[in-house]
Every structure is written in C-alpha cells, then in structure tokens.
C-alpha cells in the first residue's frame, strides 16, 4: 500500500475542503456514534480486568458491573493462577508464561535476521533471476499454514527422516515460526532496504568494502525503523499464535505456550471465571504493553504489509 502516514501524527493545517467534509459529518449523531462504538469496543476488556480482580465468591454470584457499587478487589486470583493452578489442576500458568517467552524471543529474532539478509541480497546483489526469486517468495504468501502443517509435523517427529526427531523441544516451534515468517518478512524488509540511497553502497564498494561490511555498517543501522516494525509485528504474531503452537507443542506441557494452555483451560474449567479471566489477562498483558508503547511502529508495519500466513 502506498499510504505510509501514521494515523495520529500531527497533520498540516487542513484546507477548506477537508474542513467542509469534516463539518458535514460533525453532527452530534456522529460524535455519539464514535463514542458509542469506542465504549462498546472497550467494555468487554474492562469486564475481564475487573473480574480478574474480584474475589471468586463475588464473581460467581454477581455481575462485574456491580463491583463499582460494592468495591472489593484482590490480587489473589493472579497469585493463584500463576503459582498454584486454581483450575482444579496442579501447577500454575507461570511455566507456560516462560514457555511463551522462550518461544517468542527466538521465534522473532531468527526470521528477522534471515529475512534481512535475504532482502539485502535481493535488493543490492543483483543477479540473473533475483527479481523472479523475489516475486516467487512474495507470492508464497498465498500458501496457508494449514497446507504445510501435516508434512512438517511428520518431518519433525522423525517419520520422514528416521533418527531426526526433535519433537517435544522448542526447536520445531522456532523453525516453523521462522519458516512461516519468511514471505512477509522478506517482502517488507526488501521494500525498505531497496529504497536506501544507492550512492552510499557504491561509495562503500569503491572503497573496497565487502557486502558483509556494507550490511553491518550501512544497511543495518539505516534499516532500524523497518526492522523494529517487523520485529514488533512478528513478536505479537508468535506470542498470540495458537495454530503453530498447538500443532508443534500441543502434546507436551513442558514446552506449551500460554495460548495453548488457556484454550485448554477455557474448554475444561470454563466456569471458574475469576481464575480464567486472570489467566487471560496475564496472556494479553505483554502484547498490550508492547502495543501501547510501540503503537507507531506497529501501525507502520501494518500499513506496509499485507497478510501473513
């Protein structure tokens, strides 16, 4: 997409026509609509947060909206779900939170590094067929993850190459996330890296710098905004992913991330709302912090890219 302006950047003084459009929509009804939609969009999450802070007895017998009339809040639910379990199962969510981090951090860094290298080669080490390769990689975005899951699972569990069995470790999850990230990552980073000033590269080449040196001292420093955008995007994607995690880590609690665990708990212990809401809030806390702190980069990544997976 051509548009690149962040949504909330300071704008230039609007011209009369823009003002006219705004004025014509500037009825009280329009304001009411915006506020109503925003409230509707926010209430479910507020309900989750409030419920997770109420004692279990209150949660089961009264709606969360009554908590504002008779306030009684506690952090006990968080202590319970993180450390003790509290779902009628032993063991809390903390190990799964650790798994989520142990999956997400390498699952973000690996594809960013490999895709940045490939994007540089396709943009600045032109060779016969490099454009065709770029287009094929870009076009691979059409393949849904679902198309690759069964054969990949067979590969990682050793039923295609005997003796190669990495099932039950983080390795399949990391590799799968790295593989599935490639088309979008290479596309986004190529768009950015290809637009870097060519004079710089030429000057460096004339001075006798190798491509490795150019990448290290010119391309990487200049591409920081694009790398940051994609890193945030990929981190949120991996952290929030259920499909890949369920397929490659769903069988072993030792490596299972939060999303998989919560999906299980939601099915079997769905009536313990004070625990389930606290667990859900634990899982959405990190994405929300990342999102609100780095919203601008996230938006930039969204506007530059298209679909993933």
């Amino acid at each position, binding site marked *: *997409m051509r*548009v690149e302006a962040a*949504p*909330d950047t300071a704008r230039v003084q609007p011209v*009369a*026509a823009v003002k*006219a*459009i*705004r*004025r*014509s*929509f500037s009825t009280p009804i329009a304001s009411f609509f*915006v506020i109503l*939609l*925003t409230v509707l*969009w926010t209430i479910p999450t507020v*309900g*989750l947060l409030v419920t997770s802070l109420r004692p279990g007895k209150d949660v089961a*017998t*009264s*709606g*969360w909206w009554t908590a504002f009339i008779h306030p009684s809040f506690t952090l006990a639910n968080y202590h319970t779900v993180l450390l003790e379990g509290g779902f009628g199962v032993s063991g809390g969510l903390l*190990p799964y939170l650790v798994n989520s981090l142990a999956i997400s951090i390498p699952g973000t860094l*690996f594809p960013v590094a490999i895709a940045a*290298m*490939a994007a*540089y*080669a396709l943009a600045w080490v032109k060779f016969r067929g490099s454009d065709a*390769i770029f287009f094929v*990689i870009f076009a691979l975005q059409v*393949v*849904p993850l*679902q*198309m690759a*899951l*069964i*054969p990949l699972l067979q590969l990682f569990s050793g039923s295609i190459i005997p003796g190669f069995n990495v099932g039950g470790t983080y*390795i399949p999850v*990391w*590799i799968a996330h*790295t*593989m599935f990230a*490639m088309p979008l990552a*290479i596309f986004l980073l190529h768009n950015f890296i290809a637009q870097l000033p060519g004079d710089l590269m030429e000057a460096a080449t004339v001075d006798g710098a190798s*491509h*490795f040196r150019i990448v290290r001292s010119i391309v990487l420093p200049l591409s920081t905004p694009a790398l940051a955008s994609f890193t945030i995007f990929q981190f949120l994607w991996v952290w*929030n992913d*259920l*499909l890949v995690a369920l397929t490659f880590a*769903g069988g072993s609690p030792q490596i299972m991330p939060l999303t998989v665990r*919560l999906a299980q708990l*939601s*099915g079997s212990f769905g009536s313990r709302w004070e625990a389930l*809401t606290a667990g859900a809030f634990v899982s*959405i806390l990190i*994405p929300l912090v990342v999102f*609100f702190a780095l*919203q601008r980069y996230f*938006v930039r990544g969204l506007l530059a890219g298209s*679909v993933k997976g």
Partner: protein
Amino acid sequence: MTVLTAILADSLLTDTITKFADAFAAIVIFFGVLLLVFFAAARATGRLGRPLTILVFLGPAIVLLLIGLVVPALRTLFLSFQNDDSTRCVAAGNYAWAFTSDSIHQVLLNTLAWIIIAPVLATVLGLAMAVLVDRLKRQAVYKSLIFMPMAISFVGASIIWRFVYEAHDPSQPQIGLLSQIAIWLGAQHPPNWILSHPLNNALLMVIMIWVETGFAMVVLSAAIKAIPTEILEAVHIDGARGGQTFYYVTVPMIRNTLIVVLTTVMITTLKVFDIVRTMTGGNFGTQVLANEMYSQSFVQFNVGRGSALAVILFVAVLPLVGYNIVQLRAERGIR
C-alpha cells in the same frame, strides 16, 4: 507446608532458568554461526566471492521456504489423494467426501457466512470510524481503544467474549453482560447464547469484527489522509458539499484500499480457527473450515481428509491473495 512451597518454588525456578538458558543458547548459537559464516565468506575474494555472498545471504531463506512451505504444500496436495493413513490412493475420494457429507455441508455454509458477514461489517465500521473520528478532540484515544483488540490473541479475545456471553439459570443473578442487558431490556429468560443455533454463529463473528475493525480503521484512515488536498480543494470550489465529496471523491479515491482491506480481512477470516476452537470447539453447529481441517488432521488423524480440506482452503484463499498481489504490484509499478 513451607518446605513444600520452597521445593515447589525451587523446582519452578530451576525450570524457568533452564528454559531461558535453552532459548538464550539457541540465540547465541544462531548468531554465532551466522557471524562465523560471515567472517569466513568475507575472506573469499575473486571469482568465488560474489556467488558465495549470494549463497550466504539468500541460501538460508530459500532452504527454509523450500522445506517449510513449498515441499510441504506439494506433499499435502499428494496426501489429499490418499486414504487416511496414506497407504492407498483414493483419487478424488476425499474431495467427494468434503462436498457431499452432511456435516461438512454445514461447515462450508458457516464458512461462507463468516467470510461475507465479518469482513463487510468490519470494513464498514472501520470506514465509518476513520471518517468520523477525524474531527473529535482526543481522536488518538478513540483510535487506540478501537485498535487495541488487534494486539490481543484470538484465544484471549475468545475468553473475553465467552465471559460476555456467559448465561446463568434465570433464577440466579446473571454474570454475563449480554444476558444482563437482555434482562434490562425486558427479556424474562435470556437464552444460553452459545448453544442457540444459528445465533451463536453471529456471536462468534462479533469477535472477528471486534478484532478487525481497528485494522480497517487504521489502514483506511491513512488512505483518506493520502488523498491529495488539491483534488478536495477543486471539488470544494466547484461547489460540492461535504457529504457529496465523501461519496463522489473520497470513496472512489480509496476504492483500491477498501478492496484490499476487505480481502485481507476475508483471508484472515477464512484461516482463523482459534475463535471457534476456544468458544465452542466446533460444536452446536458453529464449525468452520479451518477448525474442521485441524480436527480431521490432528484430533482424528484423518490425514487424507485433513489434507483435502487444507487444499480447499488454499483454493479458496488463492483468488483473494492473488488479487492483493496484483494490486500491490500495480501500485508499485506506478510509483
């Protein structure tokens, strides 16, 4: 008791440290190998230098794509013509099953409803927000709040909404917001929302709309701001009023972006299985293609049928993504 807690905490700590150490070691090894290869390859000069550079930079990505996407996709296509334990060829048998069996009939109908209703509503609401929020004070706050669900996982979103839809017996106080609102509005016995077909399908789609409206709003808002002000100025001088300008200038000018947003949300909707899986597990007449594919493949281990459903999903996505790709290439060609 304290001893037990101490042991528990101790094993938890050991476990945590081990896992972080694993992840850290993987990162160190990965970047170590990368640097080593770089260092070695940078020494090669002369005729070998260039091909080696290309190999080092591009090789890993190509290998990952071949092993991770190209070969598996072809193998899935092959498996879809085999029986469920891949011992014998059944020709188009799995596809015949997919299009004739009654249970899958419902799945395909649900999927069709999903990919029409959810993307259209998300795009319309996103467009309305993009246009209307512009002149409010503190618009960044409204935008952030509408956009926020994008950061939440579909699993998290499903739990949030399952709580909204929670229904208690009418004799007890309701704890789900929807039931309570129904009672405030005068309903005597609000239904058990998740069990009432076909309403439950709409309730699940609400989650998708809740997540994707922010995406539509952000992308469309950027497109609207990218319209050259000269055009708007000219139309204004010609005497068009605001509403007319919106219908005759703004909408046609962002037509391409509108379609890209619509198809993008459609693709996401086609492939999303988290919502249905977390909310109903596909029961009560809410099953969709992506979740059925998962159940067939990894719950019932019907590899042939699962593969056939994956191929159907691929064929359904193909024109949508194809359109987006053509669109993107055309825009980049113009630039």
